Each structure stands twice: as structure tokens, then as C-alpha cells.
């Protein structure tokens, strides 16, 4: 009986196998990996016309960073959908 169990176990090992499938982590557009810079500082001045361009630049900077965050969300959702379809 012991021999039979041993032989059966040995024969069943033929069913064991390894699956060589490598899935690559998806790439990200390179410009999305750029860190958001700090907001620009206003130079010492008493003229509002010199203040406004810096404020405008900072607003622009905010929208650039917002777009990057939105793009990351979009990228994640798209890649997840693609990944989930692999079954």
C-alpha cells in the first residue's frame, strides 16, 4: 500500500508545471513623472503690474499640476481596465 501511494504520488508529479509568463508593468508618459515646482515668489515691489504676472504664472502652474493629477487618475483607470481584461 505504501509503495502504491509512493508510486501514485510520483506519477502525479507529471501534472505539475511552471508557467513562464512575464507581464511588464505599463509605462507612463515621461512628462507625468515631473514633480510639480514650488509656487513663484513675488519680487519686492509696490507696483501691482509686477505682482500680477507672478500670480498669473502661479495660477497657470496650478492648472498644469491639476492636469498632471487628472492625467494620473485617467492613466490608472485606463491601465486598470486593460489589466482587468486579461483573464
Amino acid at each position, binding site marked *: 500500500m505504501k509503495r502504491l501511494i509512493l508510486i501514485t504520488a*510520483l506519477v502525479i508529479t507529471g501534472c505539475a508545471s511552471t508557467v513562464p509568463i512575464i507581464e511588464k508593468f505599463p*509605462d507612463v508618459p515621461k512628462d507625468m513623472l515631473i514633480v510639480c515646482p*514650488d509656487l513663484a515668489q513675488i519680487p519686492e515691489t509696490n507696483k*501691482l503690474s509686477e505682482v500680477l504676472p507672478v500670480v498669473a504664472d502661479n*495660477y497657470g502652474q496650478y492648472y498644469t499640476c491639476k492636469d498632471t493629477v487628472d492625467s494620473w487618475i485617467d*492613466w490608472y483607470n485606463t491601465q486598470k481596465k486593460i489589466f482587468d481584461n486579461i483573464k
Partner: protein
Amino acid sequence: MFGWLVEHIIGIVPFWVWLTVACAGGVGYFFFGIITMIPFLMPYREPIKIACIVICLGGTFMCGGDGVTTIWQAQIKEANAQIEAAEAKSKDANNKLAQVRQEKAKVRTEYITTVKERIVKDTQIIDAECKVAPEAIKDLNEAAKNPLKKDVIK
């Protein structure tokens, strides 16, 4: 070890060979069981029976391995094809995203440039009745600082 054995040997030898080996072992077991009833072959009865069992089991083992390997190979092929398709989709999605981002950046840059040009144009009107206090600049710059940066915390 046995997985390796099956995968490498099965790739070379066709399935029907293993089937033949297994059947030969089974048939041989009964055949030699009868043949070894002849008195001068009687001493070889047990070794031959064991050899036949081993051959039959070995053949069965490799038959099973061949079937499993064939299924696995088909599944691997399918999975690899799916991965390739997914990678292509991912690349395509990234290209589209990069293109959209580029277009948005262009629109933003143009918009900010327009606003700044307007500020330059309206400089005299803006500065005519407004003088910014140094405290306002200081406070605004403080507000623009990231409080989580070490040099900002006091």
C-alpha cells in the same frame, strides 16, 4: 524535477510513443505472466513483471505529462497573446494621453501668455491708483510657500 523532465522530454518525443510504451508495459505484464509459466522461464517471472509495471507507469506518467504540457502550452500562448494585446493597448492609451496633455499644455501656455500680455498693456491703468504695501507682498509670498517644507516651518 519531474516537471522539468516532462517539459523537456515531451517536447522531443511524440505522444504516441508514450502511449505505445504504456500499452507495451501493460500488455507485456500479462503476456510475460503467461509465458513465464514455462518452467525454465519461471525464475524471471518477478523481475519481468516489475519491469513491465515500471514501463507501464513510466509511459502513463509521460502520457499524462504530454497532455498537461500541451494544455499548458496552449494556455501560455493564449496568455502571451493577451499580454501582447494589452501592452499594445496600454501603449496606445499612453500615446493618446500624452497627445491630450500636450494640447492642453499648449492651450494653457497661450492663455497665460494672453493674460500676461493684457497685464503689460494695462500696466498704466493698474498702477495708476494702486500702490501695493510691502506687507501684502510678504503675506502673499508666505501664502505661496509650502508649509510642509522644512525651511518654511519656524
